[in-house]
């Protein structure tokens, strides 16, 4: 039972960290609960479908189907996180300005929510497919004590969800004025980490050049497969033996999001407050 608890917890925990950040980042946006729950449901359904067609995925793209699929959904998540980041950069300024823009913001907020629901779905899909296949294997082997293993799996899901909830609660305890600055950085790091992972997956299958297969080795210091290592991997894309292209993708996306958000904030329509405008302009 313990073995299945550990295996399932690990996967749910990784997805849960992403869900926790997304929940905090969408704090205060109307109807986000339904959207994000939809994202989790879609991810779970997708995971079951992916497990069902695992054989077909495996043999697709000359045996590189799993790599191509994982990289593709990671890149989709990076694009969605970027969209949200830029939207927040704009939205934050407008919220502080005229309230008459609110109607438009709600419509825009819906698009950002769709993007974030997709990010949640991708996180659940990636880790969920492994859980589904693992539990299917237990059920199919019908070996003794599979009930206990299933119970362990259920407890693993519960514990993983608790971590997610705990992260969310500690994030929203941050004062609102600071919250979106913190979640902004978390989203940028999350996107950078996912971009790095996508690059590492593609380079690992020789689909793109690696630019150095191992830039450094910190597996002795902080192994990527330990729980803190996994948490950092899921949150900021930590790798104990990163490839060159992985670091490059990480840096590129982080820089693009930080610079992009700054530019959007500057270009966003400002509230009609000349004194404020003058003070902030160089």
């Amino acid at each position, binding site marked *: 039972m313990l073995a299945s608890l550990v295996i399932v917890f690990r996967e749910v925990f990784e997805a849960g960290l992403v869900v926790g950040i997304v929940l905090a980042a969408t704090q205060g946006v109307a109807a986000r609960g339904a959207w994000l729950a939809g994202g989790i449901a879609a991810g779970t359904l997708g995971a079951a479908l992916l497990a069902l067609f*695992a054989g077909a995925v495996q043999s697709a793209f000359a045996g590189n189907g799993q790599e191509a699929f994982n990289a593709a959904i990671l890149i989709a998540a990076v694009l969605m996180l970027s969209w949200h980041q830029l939207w927040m950069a704009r939205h934050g300024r407008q919220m502080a300005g005229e309230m008459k823009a609110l109607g438009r913001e709600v419509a825009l907020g819906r698009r950002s929510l769709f993007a974030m629901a997709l990010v949640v779905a991708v996180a659940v899909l990636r880790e969920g497919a492994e859980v589904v296949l*693992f539990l299917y294997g237990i059920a199919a082997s019908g070996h003794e004590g599979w009930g206990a293993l299933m119970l362990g799996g259920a407890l693993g899901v519960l514990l993983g969800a608790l971590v997610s909830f705990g992260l969310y609660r500690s994030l929203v305890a941050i004062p609102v004025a600071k919250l979106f600055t913190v979640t902004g950085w978390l989203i940028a790091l999350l996107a950078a980490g996912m971009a790095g992972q996508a690059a*590492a997956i593609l380079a*690992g299958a020789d689909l793109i050049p690696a630019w150095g*297969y191992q830039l450094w080795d910190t*597996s002795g210091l902080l192994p*990527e497969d330990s729980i803190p290592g996994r948490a950092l991997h899921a949150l900021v894309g930590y790798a104990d033996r990163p490839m060159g292209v992985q670091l490059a993708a990480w840096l590129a996306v982080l820089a693009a999001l930080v610079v992009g958000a700054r530019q959007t904030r500057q270009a966003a329509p400002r509230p009609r407050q000349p004194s404020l405008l003058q003070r902030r302009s160089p």
Partner: protein
Amino acid sequence: MPIGRLGLPLLIALAFAGSRAALAAEPVVLMLKDHGFVPAEIQAPAGERFRIEVTNQDGTPAEFESSDLRAEKIIVPGGKITVIAGPLKPGTYRFFDDYHPDTAKGVLIVPERQAEK
């Protein structure tokens, strides 16, 4: 300054211009049977990129995983996967089936390079 907009496509373009490490012609062949690896110990040359072929002869799914080799790939029952690993330094590298980590584990040994001639 459009650094963000120019930088990314530039990086992507550069990414495809690099060169790759040589790939060994012969894959290392592994089999999963009764939730164990056959053979449980394999060898690979140092400093070379090589393929590992894993066939799953069990009736349940498996996941070939190794943080040492940076591999993580699902194998359906009766399925076969190929992962590419390396280039590695001489040493011992562990791998396992993530779904049966207690029984299905093995090591890859990269021997010290013998003196030339």
